[in-house]
């Protein structure tokens, strides 16, 4: 018996290293190859005919990348940890992860999608990025030149240009880190998402899915304003308006820049009100 589907992906070549060294070697000897984690993004792009890469380095045999640990308020998460595992393991430490799962567009995907894949995609559709930004996440890459640690903020700003294997992500566990998102249907691109986390006297970290265009980022002006003000009703309102003026989101077929700006302010207001309670 042979049954047919009617979609498919083009022929590809896959290499499956069993150590980090081997992976790095392959990265060097195959400049045209790309790292493959769960593949939820890569396979999608191949199916849509939007990807030219035909060589992949599948890192799924690097089992140590599936570990998740926390110590003294800092979590260290392997890049192959899935969204579901990450959030359900740390849900009691970081309330944002509850909302992250609740508002996952297509929850089955969270059983496969990896944290490392999310980070490397650097896009507004990766809900973890705003959350991790407010938790001062740091990335640890294995590169042919040795281990490189890069703050997530710097990474998003283009701070790490080289080829490397993202191994772990470490971030602070913060019980007052919250997340909210507006999205439609199963769209993986949100209308907007916002994360905040309170640093006590040191103010509040604020990050948004669409800081510039479709790149997530922290919102410095809002953070600065909040660092010098006590969270009163009025300050929340002001921060909300400041948020609208401080980001420059793109317009796409789902929402205009105007809309995104406004609801970013609204979600921030609601999250800050949450913090006040």
């Amino acid at each position, binding site marked *: 018996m042979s049954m047919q*589907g009617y*979609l*498919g992906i083009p022929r590809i070549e*896959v290499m499956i290293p069993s150590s980090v060294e081997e992976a790095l070697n392959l990265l060097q000897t195959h400049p045209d190859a790309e790292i493959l984690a769960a593949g939820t993004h890569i396979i*999608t792009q*191949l199916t849509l005919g939007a990807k030219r890469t035909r060589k992949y380095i599948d890192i*799924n045999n690097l089992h140590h990348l599936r570990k998740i640990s926390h110590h003294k308020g800092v979590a260290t998460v392997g890049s192959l940890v899935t969204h579901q595992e990450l959030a359900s393991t740390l849900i009691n430490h970081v309330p944002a992860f509850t909302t992250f799962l609740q508002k996952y567009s297509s929850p089955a995907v969270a*059983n496969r999608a990896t944290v490392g894949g999310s980070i490397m995609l650097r896009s507004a559709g990766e809900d973890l990025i705003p959350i991790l930004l407010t938790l001062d996440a740091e990335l640890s890459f294995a590169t042919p030149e040795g281990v490189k640690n890069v703050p997530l903020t710097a990474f998003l700003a283009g701070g790490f240009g080289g080829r490397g294997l993202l191994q772990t992500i470490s971030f602070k566990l913060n019980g007052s880190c919250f997340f909210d998102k507006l999205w439609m249907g199963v769209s993986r691109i949100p209308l907007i998402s916002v994360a905040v986390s309170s640093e006590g006297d040191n103010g509040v970290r604020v990050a948004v899915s669409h800081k510039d265009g479709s790149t997530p980022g922290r919102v410095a002006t809002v953070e600065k304003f909040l660092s010098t003000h006590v969270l009163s009703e009025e300050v929340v309102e002001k921060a909300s308006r400041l948020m609208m003026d401080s980001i420059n989101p793109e317009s796409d077929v789902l929402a205009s820049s105007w809309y995104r700006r406004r609801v970013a302010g609204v979600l921030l207001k609601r999250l800050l009100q949450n913090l006040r309670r």
Partner: protein
Amino acid sequence: MKAEFMVNDVKYVVEVEPNERLSDVLRRKLGFVSVKEGCGVGDCGLCIVLLDGKPVNSCLMLAYQASGHRITTVEGMGDGTRLHPLQQAFIDVGAVQCGFCIPAALLVLKHLHDTKPDADREEVRHALRSVLCRCGSYIRFEEAFKQVSRR
């Protein structure tokens, strides 16, 4: 490449190409045609199977990556002679319209039933969000889940 995995408690060793997705192999090579395809890019969820008990989109996974794992399709839901209670409930509440999404909807609810039999409405809907049903049977699915969890 060789892929070696269990489907519905039966072990399969299959020769696969690197670009064959799990959905391709389940459908074409192994004949599990209950696994449907509606988009190929993770949106519709019709290709969902359970991987070690958890729903995953089989169109977003390469077949060889399933090696060493346990796969469940709707063909493996009953116990061979009797229907799974959810299957019976789907019939009883009139959940079937065109039928195209039914296998996937059953599987995500089976996972929920296995892990959280008393899930509330929001949780049921959250789980079902992975599967699009254009015929709009969502409330029927919910009804079916309720009926089974009441027992």
